[in-house]
């Protein structure tokens, strides 16, 4: 067992531990911070494996943008300092699903690869990743980007009340005499 292996296992343990803390802690914002630790440890794992590009993109996108946005949203609505005792949703269904999925995947992977060794080309360079993504996997990549775009448009539509709803102004002008009552300005 080399030092790199030890580091990999240690970082993996940190990732799993902080992942558990994310879902068990009663502190709302600290859950987000544990998520940062979890994703950061994962980035460290990538780094140990030699995939520098993926590691730093992980830090840049997930740690630097996604969780910040998550914290941002939490703080916009409610970000209590200290424990929130009203987070009392039963955790066992999620634990069952998550544990089952994790265990199933582990068993599947271990069974699939059992003792076989796979020769990997040197991983992690931007060139190789670019070639793979934009040659072999270009269709999933594009489909994913369309998915993200539609999510973006959907979010915009949901957050703006003046899109996609019948305008009440038309009704107001159609009904003569009722203008003053309907405007809302004179209530």
């Amino acid at each position: 067992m080399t030092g790199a292996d030890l580091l990999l296992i240690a970082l993996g343990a940190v990732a799993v531990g902080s992942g558990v803390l994310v879902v068990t802690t009663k502190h709302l914002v600290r859950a987000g911070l544990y998520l940062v630790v979890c994703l950061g440890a994962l980035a460290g794992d990538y780094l140990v494996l030699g995939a520098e590009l993926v590691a730093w993109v992980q830090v840049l996108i997930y740690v630097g943008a996604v969780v910040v946005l998550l914290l941002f949203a939490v703080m916009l609505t409610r970000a209590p300092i200290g424990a929130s005792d009203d987070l009392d949703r039963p955790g066992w269904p999620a634990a069952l699903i998550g544990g089952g999925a994790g265990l199933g995947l582990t068993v599947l992977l271990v069974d699939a690869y059992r003792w076989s060794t796979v020769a990997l080309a040197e991983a992690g360079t931007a060139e190789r990743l670019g070639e793979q993504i934009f040659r072999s996997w270009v269709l999933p990549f594009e489909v994913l980007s369309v998915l993200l775009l539609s999510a973006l448009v959907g979010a915009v539509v949901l957050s703006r009340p003046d899109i996609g709803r019948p305008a009440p102004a038309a009704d107001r002008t159609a009904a003569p005499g009722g203008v003053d009552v309907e405007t809302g300005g004179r209530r």
Partner: protein
Amino acid sequence: MSPSYLAQDPTLADFGRDPWWLVLIKIVFAFAFGLLATLLGVWFERRVVGYMQVRPGPNQVGPFGLLQTLADGLKMAFKEDILPKAADKVVYFFAPTISVICAVTALSVVPFGPMVSIFGHHTPLQVTDVPVAVLVLLACSSMGVYGIVLGGWASGSTYPLLGGLRSSAQMISYEVAMGLSIVAVFMTAGTMSTSGIVAQQGHGTELTIFGNSIPAPGWYAILLLPSFIIFFISTVGETNRAPFDLPEAESELVAGFMTEYSSLKFALFMLSEYVAMVTMSAVTTTLFLGGWRAPWPITIWEGANSGWWPMLWFFGKVIALVFVFVWLRGTLPRLRYDQFMRFGWKVLLPINLVWILVLSGLRSIEDWDSRGKLIAVGIPAGILLVATLFWPNRRPQPKPTTQEQVDNRPYGSFPLPPMDLQVPPSPRITRVVAEREPANIATGSDSREV
């Protein structure tokens, strides 16, 4: 030992070979550079802003007031460290540290110079370099948001929370513009390592115009001018400097996220702000201004780009950029928040995208000579300019009256009082006036004040 290696550019293979003491020296040097730059940067900013505002600035402590920042730092260390009762203690303690660490870490991939000889080892003047060094820079600056947003939240009070929220929105918005403007640099340099980008800016292409060959400059600030401008603007936004210092707008938010901070924790926030400013200047220098390479008139001297001299050019460029930061602060008033956001998302981002599209289009035409490229750029640019010049003025839309605005509010808005409401004088006021007895001076009592 021949001095030939001195002139060589470091490549990625030159990194990771240093003995441990050399690595330590480099790290300590980069750290000391950050701290010293802060000490001098605060002084420099106060003096320059003072000069711009026709006042002396700090000039009492030490020669030219150079030790003023040191004195202020000492004073801050002896102040009481206040911990708000409602604060989240752990996060409140760590937030300034996160800010400083992120700002300093970015310095580790900034090349300060070429290969030099330190105690017999020849080594690049850079702590380390990785194939994706620019991503490390971006990651560091995006992690810096945590210090601010957590500091604002953990203070447990309203203004810091608002300041922290503002800053996270601001930094995320301007990071997008920043990342996109670096994309142009990647595409042109073909590498993401900082030393590689500096090396690429060393050799410019030869432009042949009317039979004369003119050496075109290799700096990306000139080749990729739109990217450079956008990058610098988003750098100012990213470091929370005026005119984009909305997270700490004192007229709206007291001091923003650092309102509750005092003593050394406040000093750490200050430190991180100035280190970030210097780091960003260094990064701009590296990516766009040729890094440690000497500017044109100096390059006539052949030894300009070898040995320890490049460090001087590098520091010169960094100081010039810091001066621009200070200049902006002394010149421009703070933007309003919505203007700032509109600028980032509706101006910088589309321009950036179009520019990247144009650039990649140009780069895909490889078999053209430089003159053909020049024509290919020049004609559309000219058409664009003429079109902008003769574009019919957009007639300003007639402003809706107050009543129209009220009528057009979406259904379910808060009720408003009528616009022409006449508020009758309160009956209570007349009663008070009526009840007051006329002052009677004739009684001569001194105790009664009229």
